[in-house]
Every structure is written in C-alpha cells, then in structure tokens.
C-alpha cells in the first residue's frame, strides 16, 4: 500500500520520489520533514546544537540549566517555609522587628524561584534545542475568487429567501418593532439615574438641615467655635454643626475659616463683591474649601501673600479679593460663606452659600 504524495507546489523538489509515509523503513526525521513539506514549511537551516553528544561544553550547559532549576526549587521551598514560619504579624514602630522583612523575603524568594525556572527554560531553549531556520508560506490575503463567488451567491440567495427587499412593509414593521425593543433593553440602566434636584446648590449650611434655623460652625470633632479661639493669621477647617456635618454625607460643606490681619481684613471688605458684602464677621472670613476647578480641597494657605493654593491642579486664589483665581485652571472664585456670631458667642452661617460651590456644571447659574 502506498500513498500518493502531491508534489510540492511549485517548489524545488528535493526528492523526485514521493515519500512512502507508511513504509516501515522510513526514519522518523524523514517523516518530520515530510510533515513540514506538506504544511508548506521549508527547512533553510537545521542542525543540532551539539553534533557530537557529550562534549565538555554540552555537559556544562546541562549543569548550568540544572543549577537554575535546583535553585528555583530551593527558593520555592524557602518561600513556603518563610510564608509559614517567618513572623509576619505587623508590629508598629519596631525598628528591628523580623516581621517587617516578611514581604521583602517573600518577594525575593518568589522572584528567585520564578526567575530560576525562567532562566533555566530560556537557556535550555537557546543552548540545547537545535538551531533552526524555517520558511513557511503565508497563504494570506483574500480567499480564492471561486470561493468568494460561491459564498457571495449563497449569501445573496439567503437574503433573497427572506424576501425583505421585496416586502418593504415587513422591513418597516421590523424596524419599528426592533428599535423600541432596543431602547427598552436600555431602560434598566434608568435605575442609576437620579435627579440632581438642588443638591448641587445646597450645602450642610443650609437651614433646611437644621429645622429652618441658621447652622452654626463646628470643628471636625463637633465642638462649636468662638471667634476669639482663632489667632490672627490662623485658619481652620469648619463644618456645619448638624448631625453628620463633618462626614462625607456633607462632602460639599468643608469651609475654610481664616482670621485675617487687620489691614488684610479691611482690604477684603473693600474688595467684596456686591454678593459678598457683609459676609465677613469682623476680621473673620469663610470660603468654601472645595476648589471650583474639579473639587479638590483648596487647602494650602499662604499667610504672607494671602493666597490659597489647590494642591491637585495648582489653582491659586486671592483671599483678600473674594478668593478670585489668579493662577491655574480654575475660573471662578471660591464662594464665600456669610458668617456672624450669635448671642451665645458662637460663629454661625447667616445663610447657605449664595452660589453653587465646587466644580462648574451646565446649569449652575440657573438657580
């Protein structure tokens, strides 16, 4: 029994006789070559890395590779041992604790274990596998024109069989059916949609959070603030004195309260916009801490120059001039919180901010 082997496609044929694949006398390498030939692969160059087996250099390469594999195994064992027995529980402040080396030891051992395997395999591949250079035909590009024509005709025929082109009413009806269905499938996303309402225009200083009464200022720990508690030139972050006023529930409310020096306070009063007139209480002035660029806390206060810097994108605001931006990407001044002192001597906001605080949005002037 013999199989007919088609001659290579236009290639030079090394063997005029087609190889009898099923002949028991054919060597394995001949079979491999035949397989390559049938798959369109031509051997340009092929030689064993060590034509004479057992040379000194071959043994050396084998030893090197074995070393890396053994190293890897040892490191992996070390990793397991360290993972289990190395003291790992974190101790704070201990300068010479074993546990602070836990992660570096694990990393180093794991790195050596993985790297050893990697280097071993790569050395094996580069130093022991045969040197080879093969050429394979690509057979890419378009399909055979006959195939294209047959498939094209089949496709058009299938289209014709549905008869959409001949029955325009069906087409329109289907379109009408499918389009709303597609939209309907999008509807569940509606669960995410929430009406912003006036949420972007109000902060925790709005009396509506305090039963209609003006909201006092408080520190983060909840203590109320008397004006004399802030030294001249000092600044603190204040929050609305309502339940949860200093939490993320009122992330729009953090406010910077600054005690200006006398001449600066005078300057600020003279510069005040119409809207901001009377918002200062004596030399105390309060600005929203939320940057009008994209909402980071603008919290670096430069006392000497009366500038406020936002550390995220470096917008700078002029404290004694309505906190208008004088550098950087911010466009609008930080809104000023109108403050006063009540009969018990505590600072409070006479009203909410008069404009929306924080980053700008499409309808921010519509309120």
């Amino acid at each position: 029994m013999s199989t007919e082997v088609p001659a290579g496609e236009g290639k030079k044929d090394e063997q005029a006789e087609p190889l009898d694949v099923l002949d028991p006398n054919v060597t394995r390498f001949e079979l491999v070559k035949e397989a390559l030939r049938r798959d369109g692969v031509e051997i340009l160059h092929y030689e064993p890395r060590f034509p004479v087996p057992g040379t000194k250099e071959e043994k050396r390469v084998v030893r090197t590779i074995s070393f890396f594999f053994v190293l890897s195994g040892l490191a992996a064992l070390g990793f397991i041992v360290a993972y289990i027995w190395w003291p790992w529980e974190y101790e704070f402040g201990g300068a010479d604790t074993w546990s602070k080396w836990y992660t570096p030891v694990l990393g180093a051992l794991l790195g050596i274990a993985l790297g050893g395997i990697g280097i071993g395999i790569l050395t094996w591949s580069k130093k022991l596998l045969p040197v080879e250079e093969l050429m394979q035909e690509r057979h890419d590009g378009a399909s055979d024109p006959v195939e294209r024509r047959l498939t094209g005709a089949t496709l058009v025929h299938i289209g014709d069989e549905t008869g959409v082109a001949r029955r325009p009413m069906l087409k329109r009806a289907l379109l009408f059916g499918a389009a709303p269905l597609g939209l309907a499938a999008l509807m569940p996303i509606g669960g995410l949609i929430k009406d912003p309402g006036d949420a972007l225009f109000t902060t925790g200083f709005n009396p509506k959070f305090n039963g209609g009464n003006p909201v006092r200022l408080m520190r983060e720990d909840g203590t109320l603030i008397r004006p004399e508690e802030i030294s001249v030139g000092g600044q603190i972050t204040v929050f609305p004195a309502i339940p949860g006023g200093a939490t993320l529930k009122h992330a729009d409310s953090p406010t910077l309260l600054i005690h200006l020096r006398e001449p600066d306070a005078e300057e600020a009063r003279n510069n005040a916009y119409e809207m901001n007139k009377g918002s200062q209480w004596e030399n105390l002035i309060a600005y929203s801490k939320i940057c009008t660029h994209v909402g980071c806390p603008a919290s670096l206060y430069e006392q000497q120059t009366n500038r406020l810097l936002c550390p995220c994108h470096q917008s700078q605001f002029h404290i004694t001039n309505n906190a208008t931006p004088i550098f950087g990407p911010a466009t609008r001044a930080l809104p000023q919180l109108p403050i006063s002192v009540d009969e018990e001597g505590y600072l409070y906001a006479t009203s909410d901010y008069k404009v929306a605080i924080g980053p700008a949005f499409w309808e921010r002037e519509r309120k």
Partner: protein
Amino acid sequence: MKRRKLDVKQLPAKAAGELDDRFQLASPLRKVLTKVFPDHWSFLLGEIALFSFIVLLLTGTFLALFFDPSMTEVHYEGAYAPLRGIEMSKAYESSLNLSFDVRGGLILRQMHHWAALLFMAAIVVHMGRTFFTGAFRKPRETNWLIGVLLFWLGFAEGFIGYSLPDDALSGTGLRIAGGIAESIPLVGSWVSFALFGGEFPGDSVIPMFYILHVFLLPGLLLALIGVHVGLVFIQKHTQWPGPKRTEHNVIGYRMFPNYVSKQGGFFMLVFAVIALMAGLFQINPIWMFGPYRAEVVSAGSQPDFYVMFLDGIVRLFPAWEIRAFGFTVPAVFWPGIVGMGLFTMLPLMYPFLERRFTKDKAHHNLLQRPRDVPARAGVGAMALAFFIICTLSGANDIIADKFNISLNAMTWGGRIGLLVVPPLAYLMTYRICLGLQQHDREVLAHGVETGIIKRDADGRFYEVHQPLAQPDEHGHTSLEYNGWTVPKKMNRLGALAPTLKGFFKPIEQPAPKPEADGEDGEVGDGEKREEITAGK
C-alpha cells in the same frame, strides 16, 4: 482469561489514538506544532502585557477573597496602630487588613499593583513598536483598533482598581473624575449623580466600581486580548525584511519546541520581575494616606503613571470657561472630555488616515524601519512628545519642588511646551530619519568606515572604506537598499573574532599563536600585512 499487561510506554500513543478517533486531531494539531514564528526582541513587548495580565488575574482573584467593597462606616481596630479608632469605610478597612492582617496579603496587593503598571507600560511601548514599524497596515488594522481599545480599557480598569481602597489619594482621584463628569454640557450633573448614586461621594460608587473591576472590564479585556492574540496567530506575525524574507513567507522557528519554550521562560521571568518588585519596592502605601475625607488632601497627589497625562493636561489647560444664556461649559470639559475623546479617536483613525495620504492599499507583511517612513516616525515622535509633556505636567508640583523651580513657571513651561515641542519633535525626527537614510546609502555606495586613516604621497589624508561588494572603477558599489540594517562597523562584517565563551576559563581554546616572523623582529600577531588598496 489472560490479563493483558499494561505497557506504560505505549500509554501516550494509545491516548493520542483514542483522542484522534473521536476528534480527528492529527492534521490540525500538526499545523499548530509546526507553525513558524519570526523572531525579534521587539515582538516580545506585547507578551509582557499579556503575561502581566495573567499575573493580574491570579493576584486579583486572591485580593477579591479578602476585599469588602462597602462604603459602610466602621471603626478601624486592626494591626496598624496609627489608624486605630478612626472612622473609615469598610473598603478601606479591608484594604488595610489585606496589607497588615492577612498573611502574605501585602505582597499580593503590591504584585497586583506593579503588574497593573507593567501591563500599561508594556501596552504603551508595544503600541509604539507597532506604530513606528508600520505593523498596523493592511491586513492588521483590526488588531490596531483592538489594541487602542485595550489601552483605554486598561486605563479604566486601572483607575477604577486603584479607586477601590477608598483611601485619601484615591478619593481625591474620584473627586476629580466627578468634577470632570460634571463638566459635560447638558447632562453633566446627571452623569455625576448616576456615577455616585447621588451627590459626591454617595455610598454606591465603590460597590459599583467593584463589579466593573472584577467582572465587566476584566471580561472585556480577556475577550479582546483573546481576539488580539488569535488574530496574530491567524494572520501570522509580521517580520523584518532580510535575506529570503518576502511578503509571502515567514522565516523563523517552529512553535514547538522553540517558540513555546521561549515564551514559557519569558513568562516566568516577567512573573519573577513582578514578584521581586512587589517584595522589594513599596507601591501605593494606602495606610499612609488615611481614609478619604472631603477636606483632606496632601501635596504631591499623583495618579498612577498612565493617568498622569490626563491629570497633566487638566493642570495645563487655561481657565477658559464659556458662559452664555445662563449656561456654563466648564474649562475642564475641553481637556477632560474632548481631549480624551481625541486621544481615543485619533489613534483609532490613524491607519485609515495614513492610507488616505499614502494611497497605499497593498497587503503588508514586512515591517518598515522607522527611518524609511520619516513622516510617520515624525507623527509618532510628535504624539510621544505631547504624551510626555502632559505626563510630566501631571507631576509638575513634584518637579517644581525637587528642582526648586517656580510652580507657575512649570505650568507655563508645560503650556508653551505643549504647543512648541511636538512640532519640533516632528521636524527633528524627520531630519534624523533622512540623515539615517542617507548614511545607509552612503555605506552601500562607498563601504564601511574602517577607522584606518591613510596618508597619500601628496600629503592627503583619507579614511579607508571597506566596500560591501566588488567596487567599480570609481570605487563605488551599486548595492540596493533592502529595508534592513546596513552593516556600519567592521565587526559586523566579521572582521573581528567573536569573544571567547566561558566565565572563569574559556571553553574554547584560543587559536594558537603563530610563531613570530622573527627575522625583522616585528612585534605583532605575525600575520602577513598587505597594503590596503580598497576604498581609495
């Protein structure tokens, strides 16, 4: 009945036979085994991204076992003493626990983060390789499109991922993302409210990000990576021009054993590098930032490197807010939304734009050296310059601090640089490409510089050139440039013996020194010297 003896050696063959009986595997399997892959170091850049992604899946699965994506407020009582008793979200608490109270948790967290950085870095470099060598040309445009999408998916996945711990730094990033979302005309506040389930920060963004981060985006990434690699396999890899290499063949080695063993070894090496970095270099120490609070920020707040270009351009864009008819288009809309849209669309469109200009509709399997397409190299350099300036500007406060430069000067430098440097990069790259082209032609026509200076009888000095072929009577060779490296040094022509191998002692013995000529007592290697006549 006689019991048949089990022949262990025959088992694999028997199993293979049983499988082939059922699935007819012989022919397709052999095609995979003997598939030929071309070889070049630059083809491995994409593999780094692929391997990092596998590490991300492995480590991410571990992290998911311990992470609790909840914004419920709790008191921290874990091992890290400085934060004990502080109110924080469960997400932040469980991230801290992963770092301090889970055995081996910190190294896996750091592996995950480093692998993410390596993933994105490898994507950027791989994209550069594909771009500058023209590997995106027909028929591989689809894979370029998928690659660009993979960058943006990785960008989103990375940003969302480092937002999950809910620490002060990532919360600041979220606040900025919220501010950018709010800037969209007409629907900005609605988009922001949908994202946060109400006014920032709300209590739903972490759970929502979690499901995106561990299910939706990785699923998409995995699917697209599968298609990306599958297309490389089906369309066959591009190759550099060279001897015997044409548009219609692939020259290299077989998938098995050479290619697969190299890939396997390389995967282990990438994995090893990530493990070493995770063990030895700290990344994202969330315990130092504290929980997110709206009024807290620290100087030097930088996102991960692949988001820095966005942060940088947001820093540089001038305060140009548009207000008309009572409506506002915030300045950040332009860099944050329009800019990112352009950064997505322009790379997506590039293969088609280039084809429109070059009118090149041919099928390409051979790569181009960047110097041979100066305009494309210039465009790439321009894009890179833009990206680098944006990225550096994302850290302009750090640069200003470390180099004692005014912060405002950094901002202005970035603004001017963004307009001036990219065109300059284009022009310079274009000229450098032309210069390199010219030098290639020069070597092909006159030969390699030997470094030997000769002096003529009339006192004239000239350098001897080694021609690459038999020169004509004018000393010129007419060799055609074939799109591949032109040898430019004598040792590339085999003029110098290769170095001897061996670490402590040479494996191969050096060739024995021939006896010295003796007679004239000349010192040297004793080889006969002849006058160099070539290249005059």
